Each structure stands twice: as C-alpha cells, then as structure tokens.
C-alpha cells in the first residue's frame, strides 16, 4: 500500500497532534504555517484542559457527565456523537500529554493536580501554571521536531495558504501556498489537505486572538465551496484589557478574589477614579444582581458591561469603551499572593499598578465556536467510527478541518478548558482517516495540471493587487472600520435592525476594498500585500456571521437577541405560576423545534452567503432548558421533568 501524502495547514495543537500521529504511521506530512509552529496561537491558552480523572471519578464523575456538561453548556447545538467521542478520549489525551513531558501542576503525592472551571461541579481541569496552552503546544512541537529530524515532516514556516486545488469533480487534490519571505508561489499536491488554522478574531478588528488569526485560510476554503457552520456563534469573554493593538485577557479570578466592577455615574467623568466618591459610582453588576454581584455568569457579565457602555453611554472613556475593575480596596499582600501573575500582565502592558489604580477592562471576542462544516460517521455506541473517511471531512472531498476552525464540538457556547481538548482530539482522531483516505483518492488525475492552473489564478490575483498603487482606500483603515462594525453589531447583544445595517455596511466596505492601494509593490517579504489580501478575505466571513445572526431569531448560548429572550416567571400565585411554567415550556419546545439546527452557509456570488439549516443529532441526550439564574426556574424544571417522564 503506497503511503499517502498529506498537507496540513496550521501548526497549533490540532495541526501538530495530527502531524505527530501521521508521521508515526510513516506518512509524509507537509506542514504549512504563517509563523514558526511554536509561535501558534494555542500558546496563548492559560487555564487548562478538561477530562474526567481518577479523583473526580470517585466523586461520581464520568465521561458521560463531561459530555453532558459540554452539550448543556453548548445549548445542545452540537452533534452529540463527536462530543461523546471527544470526552471519552479525554483521559487518554491527558495521559499522553503527561507522557510527552507537559509539566502539569502536581499534588503533594506527585499526581497531576486539577482545578475547577466554569460549567461543571467537578475539578476536571489539568493545568500547567497559567500557561497550559503553551506547555501543551511545546510538547507537541517537540515531538514533531523529532519527526522532522527523521525526515517525515517537512515544515513550511512563514507560508500562507491561498487556495485548495479542486478537480472537475470538486475533489481537493492539493493547495496553493505562498512563501511570505520570497513571495514565491508553490503548489502542494496532496491526497488530503487538512486545515487547522484556528479562529477568526481579526474579523472583529481587535480580539484576544493573535495577529495571525485572520480567518483567511478558512475564508479561502469557503470561497472555494466549503460550507461554514454556525458562524454566528462567537464567544466574548467579559474581562479583557483594551489595547490599541489587541485585547488581552484578564482572568475571572480577579473578580473571584473580590474585584468590583463599576463606572462613574457621570458619563466620562475625567477625575482620577480614586477621587470619585462612592455615591457617584455605579457598581452596576452588584446593583442589578444583588445575589451574584460581580460573579454573575460569564455571558451575563459580558452583556451588562457591554450594555452600560453602548446603550447607557457610561463608558469610562469616550473613544475607548471600558469599565473599571477595581481591586484597590484589597490589601496588597493578599493581591500579590493570590493574583500576582495576572496583575503583572496588567502592569507590564498598561504601565499602571492595578493594586493602586482601578483597571480598565472591556469584553473581547475570544473564540469562534463556528467554523468549517465537517462530517462524521456515527458508531453503534453513539460515538464516531475511527478511521471513517467522513470524519472531519468538509463537504469538499479530500479537504478536512480540525481544531478551532471546524464547527464540530462547542455548539452555541464553549466551556472553559474544552478547547485544548477538542484541538488535540480532532488532530489525533482524524489521523487514521487520512492514512486510509490517501488510498481511496489516489487515481489517474493529473494533479500537476490542476495545480498549475490554480497557481496561475493565484499569481494573477497577487499581481493585480500589486498593480493597485493608486486608490483612496487604506487596508489598515478598512480593517479597523470592519472591526468596529462587527464589534458593534455582532458580539454581545444583537438586534435585527443593527445586524441588517451592519450587513449593508460590510457590503460597502467590501466594495471599497477594491479601491485599496498597496503601499509596497515589492516582491520580498511584502507584509502589506499579504495583509491587504487577508482583509479582502474577511468580508465573506463577516457577511456569513452577520446573516446567520440576523436570521436566527432566538437566544442560544453566545447568541443573544433581547427581542427573543424568554423571561422568567412573574406570577407568585402557585396555580398561575404553574400555568406560566407550562406556557414557558411550550414556548421552549416550539423554539427547539424551530431553531435547534446548525446554520450552514455556502458562499454565493460576490461573497454573499446562502444560508440553510441542518438538523442536529441530539439522540444521546435530549435538549432541556438552561435555567441558570432564571426567576421561576424550579417551577419550569418541574413541568419539564414531568413532560420528559411522559415521553420516556
């Protein structure tokens, strides 16, 4: 059996774990990455990686409960078999990373230590200091380097993926990439192309993501015919440090240790925050949620901070939306002991000591739950069939997607510390599929000829861009405008009129992009033209996010439309309350029937998305209402359980 040749695009956790497993099977891998793979965005993950473990197991935890937390947290929008397979693999993945030398924190006895994360009752999260993503990435980078020395992996670092190469039947036969140093184009013939290119935070201008997370590779696959699933589901983290260049995460533990969020009651009060008296401050989370205060759930905190700045106009600064996160009332020695690390980050990047001056924070786009639509084959026990050619395959045969750039594992909302797991899992799990698929796809097709044709198309696109030296538009300014439009309309709170308006604005921006002039016409390390190209490829993605959000008239996970929110119960009289709970459950069931569907975007002419919907496989665990913090939750739950018993 001839060994297939595989091209992997992206060298984060997903791409590297896939490359490692393939090389181990004796398969030759070309690994293309915008940056040296050790610098991929996975390096930024801090918190940890989830899995049931020896300790939680004895407290009643199981793989099933991890699965349940994940689909409940994701508001039931993900197909369940892939999630079940992933959570089943959890313990093995942690063990593997442990063997590869990840310095997980240890207990006194020398076992791996775990901490608790959001959305679960168990301490499932293994961690290595505050840099778990870095440590996992390095362990995989080291193994892949080892295979590189042995000649099975060839890295193409500082290379940009431009397009898949498709044959007349729409099968992927390779890809065109560009060297970012010499600007040389090259075609890669391959039996399978695997995209592992991460999220698309830069579509929102600034986010917590790295500068390479433009989403351009995914956009190029989408424009070539790959479907995009659940694009409107974007995770926004409540507390990040706004910066002119990027938004850096500020851990939730700051509030956990007593941090208070507030704004001056007078809009843009110019006084030093320490001089603003208590009476002139609004501790809006504590005022609106007396029970939970500053520790309301993540999505609520995000919404409230966003709303007080945009709707109420009470942002601390006029040009830069932010609120105060205040730790100054807590003694310095406590802060140093419990929060030292994260306070140093703030100090380093803001040049201000948060022990003395309140921090300025704002929610930030953090993770793309949506991504390329990928398939799977369901096994008889409700998981996935290992080695099936369908696993992780896009609708383009021979083109695969893994990691954050697929839409498969997190539904409408991702649980903390699940992303590292899904990245490593999908990378490992797809490997036997790729080994087998190489054989199935090898035939007499003249790849060389196909590749040359596509290569010429890409060269022409590049040359045309370089020729554009006159034009009124600046790609950097357009990117900023796009970010502003997307952040305003499609992040925390979504309203149909705003989404429709934003869609029209993005269409205009896409037209204006055609008038962009490049300021560098050279053919050596031309970052200007590469960025201009990436910005151009953001518009189709921005459009599918906006249209998906516009059409989805409900609230689900990270997608919040106040117009369609289901409020809690108002009645106090038991009979009336019961009636309301029945009505609430009726409405929930109707909404589930109407909207528990994956959004599928196909790229139409001019980058306009054509949206359709697909049923979600919820056969393992039927959807149920998420009632956290809702008034009347007990009554609703009672009714819901009765109904479940009847159907069972």
């Amino acid at each position, binding site marked *: 059996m001839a060994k297939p040749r595989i091209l992997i695009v992206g060298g984060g956790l997903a791409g590297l774990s896939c490359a490692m497993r393939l090389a181990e099977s004796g398969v030759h891998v070309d690994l293309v990455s915008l*940056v040296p793979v*050790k610098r991929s965005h996975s390096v930024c993950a801090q918190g940890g990686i989830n899995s049931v473990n020896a300790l939680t197991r004895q407290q009643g935890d199981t793989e099933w409960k991890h699965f349940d937390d994940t689909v409940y947290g994701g508001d039931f929008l993900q197909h369940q078999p892939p999630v079940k397979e992933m959570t089943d693999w959890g313990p093995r993945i942690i063990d593997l990373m*442990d063997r590869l*030398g990840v310095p997980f924190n240890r207990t006194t006895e020398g076992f791996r230590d775990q901490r608790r994360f959001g959305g679960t009752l168990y301490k499932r999260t293994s961690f290595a200091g505050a840099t778990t993503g870095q440590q996992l990435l390095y362990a995989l980078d080291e*193994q892949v380097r080892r295979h590189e020395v042995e000649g099975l992996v060839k890295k193409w670092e500082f290379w940009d993926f431009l397009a898949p190469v498709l044959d007349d039947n729409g099968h992927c036969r390779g890809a065109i990439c560009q060297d970012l140093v010499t600007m040389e184009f090259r075609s890669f013939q391959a039996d399978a192309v695997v995209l592992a290119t991460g999220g698309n935070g830069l579509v929102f201008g600034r986010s917590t993501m790295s*500068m390479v997370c433009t989403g351009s590779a995914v956009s190029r696959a989408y424009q070539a015919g790959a479907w995009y699933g659940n694009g409107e589901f974007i995770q926004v983290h409540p507390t990040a440090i706004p910066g002119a*260049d990027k938004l850096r995460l500020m851990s939730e533990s700051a509030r956990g240790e007593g941090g208070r969020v507030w704004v001056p009651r007078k809009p843009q009060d110019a006084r030093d925050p320490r001089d603003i008296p208590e009476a002139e401050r609004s501790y809006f989370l504590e005022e609106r949620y007396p029970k939970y205060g500053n520790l309301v759930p993540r999505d609520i905190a995000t919404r409230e901070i966003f709303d007080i700045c945009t709707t109420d106009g009470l942002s601390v600064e006029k040009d830069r939306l932010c609120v105060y996160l205040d730790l100054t009332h807590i003694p310095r020695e406590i802060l140093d002991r419990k929060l030292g690390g994260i306070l140093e980050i703030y100090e*380093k990047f803001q040049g201000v000591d948060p022990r003395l001056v309140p921090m300025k924070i704002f929610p930030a786009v953090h993770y793309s739950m949506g991504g390329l639509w990928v398939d799977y084959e369901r096994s008889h026990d409700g998981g996935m069939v290992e080695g099936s050619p369908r696993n992780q395959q896009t609708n383009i045969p021979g083109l695969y997607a893994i990691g954050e750039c697929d839409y498969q594992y997190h539904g409408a909302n991702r649980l903390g510390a699940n992303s590292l797991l899904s990245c490593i899992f999908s990378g490992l799990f797809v490997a036997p599929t790729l080994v087998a698929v190489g054989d199935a796809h090898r035939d007499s097709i003249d790849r060389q000829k196909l590749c040359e044709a596509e290569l010429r198309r890409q060269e022409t696109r590049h040359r045309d861009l370089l020729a554009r030296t006159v034009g009124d538009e600046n790609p950097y*300014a357009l990117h900023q405008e796009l970010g502003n439009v997307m952040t305003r309309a499609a992040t925390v709170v979504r309203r149909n009129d705003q989404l429709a308006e934003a869609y029209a604005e993005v269409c205009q921006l896409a037209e204006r992009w055609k008038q962009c002039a490049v300021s560098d016409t050279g053919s050596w390390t031309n970052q200007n033209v590469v960025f201009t190209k990436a910005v151009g490829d953001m518009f189709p993605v921005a459009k599918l996010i906006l249209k998906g959000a516009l059409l989805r008239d409900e609230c689900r996970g990270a997608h919040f439309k106040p117009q369609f929110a289901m409020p809690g119960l108002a009645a106090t009289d038991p009979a009336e309350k019961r009636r309301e709970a029945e009505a609430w459950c009726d409405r929930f069931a109707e909404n589930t029937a109407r909207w528990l569907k994956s959004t599928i975007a196909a790229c139409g002419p001019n980058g306009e998305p054509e949206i359709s919907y697909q049923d979600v496989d919820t056969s393992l665990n039927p959807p149920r209402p998420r009632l956290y913090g809702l008034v009347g939750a007990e009554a609703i739950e009672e009714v819901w359980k009765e109904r479940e018993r009847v159907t069972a």
Partner: protein
Amino acid sequence: MIKAIESDSHSGHASATPPRRVRVRVLRQDVAGSESYWERFEVPYEPNMNVISVLQKIAAQARTADGRKVPPVAWDCACLEEICGSCTMLINGRTRMACSALVDKLADENGGEIELGPMSKFPVVRDLVVDRQRLFRALERVQAWVPVDDSYDHGPGPRISAAQQEDAYPLSECISCGCCLEACPQFTKIELTQRDGESEADFEARRRKAFDTAFVGAHAISQTMLFNSHPVGGMIADERLETLTGPGGIQMCGNAQNCVAVCPKKIPLTRSIARAGRAATVWVFKRFFDR
C-alpha cells in the same frame, strides 16, 4: 517630562498636557544582504501604546516623518502578550520584545526618540525581520524532547514531585525569542549565502554544518537540563551531554551572564548553565573511564 513626545496644548484634560506624537528611528534593510539605512517616522501618541502599535501605525501611514511615501516597515509579531516569542528586536539598543515595550517608558531612554533595529546576531530578512532558524536547529541538536515510544495510550506519565515540577516549569517557559543569544558575546552571527552553482541541498548542508559547530546558546543548554531532568527525557541524557561537550558546546560559554539579564521570561539560564557544566564534567570523566 517625556522628551520623545511633544506636548499637546489642545488636550481637553485639565490635569496634565498629554503628549501628542511619537518619534521613531528605524534601521531598515530592503532585502537579505543589502545595505541598511535609517528612516524616521512620526505617529500620533496614544496612552499605553507599545512598540507594536507604533509599528502598526507606521504600516498604516507608510510615510516617513518628512512625508515621503515609503513601503511600510516589516516586522514579526503574533500574540502581542509576550508568550509567542516573535517580536524580538533591538529597542533603544536593547534586545527585548516589542509587544511589552511601552512607549511611555522608552521615551526617556534615548534622548527623545525611540530607536528600532533588527537583532544583530541573526541574518536580516527585511527591516526588523530576522531569520532565527539557527535557534530552532539548536533544539534539534540537543534533542529537546521526551523520546516516547509512540503517541498511543500507555497510561499516565511518570510520577513527578511538586518540587520537580516547580523546578522544570520555569525552564519550560522558554519562548524561543532569542534575547539570550542576542546578548551573548559568545554567540556570533552566521550569515551564509548560496554560492553560484551550489545546489539547494549542498547549501543547506553547508549551513547546517556551520550551525552545528557554532555555539549552541543558552536557550538550548537550558532545554538540555530540562529534558535531562525528566524521568523519561533523561534516558538519553548521555546523548545530549555528548552534544554539549562537542563543538559549539558548553565550553564556549564565557560566563558573561548577559543571557539571564535580558530573558523576558526570567528563566534561570545561568543556573541551567552551571548545572550543565557540572553534568558535562561528570560525563567527560565517565566517558574517559568507560573506555
């Protein structure tokens, strides 16, 4: 008063007159091997801005301080939170990460102007972008990995005490930025160009040989100690020590201790070097008597 930044009398703030423009001088180079030259830029000041935002603004305006249209300055960056290791450059003559270099703190250093240049120990690709392949090659030289059998399920890794983990973790935080190499007097630049008629493979082999006989660097010595201290990684400790006692090995370290002073992650590099030195001595004796 911060000199690099001219004050702005139009400010609405009552407390202080905030500065307005940032002046920057950049050492540019168009392609590998070409002449370098200085160019001046001015960008609007913003509170809390770092060198990356200055470079982003330079890219957007693509004009020098005197209004001349020029191609934007090229530079490397990715995470912007000092964890990916991309954006190392010389800032006011000091090797450091551009993302964590704040304009407010830099301006005082250099007579009113921020000076940016590429690292001097690596070949320049363009402007502030350098080729750090030698840094990654050094990780191959010292076999900086745990030599596991395979990635299939064999249960958990070895038990490791909390103290061992606390010892290893700081070494494992190395971001491969190259600051320690830039600051090291023993680490000198290797810049080779392909000769006429030399094949790609021959050139690569010549370059590989040059890399592999030159000083391996503090980062790789520290990684050696990290993997030698791991229960499974240590199973090939002798092979790593053989490399460290070979050409370009630890004997080249002149103990200048610059590496530890410039490391952005505060990795105890000199401690690793001292440990490596002792281990290498023991290894040399062992090899001698085992003959």
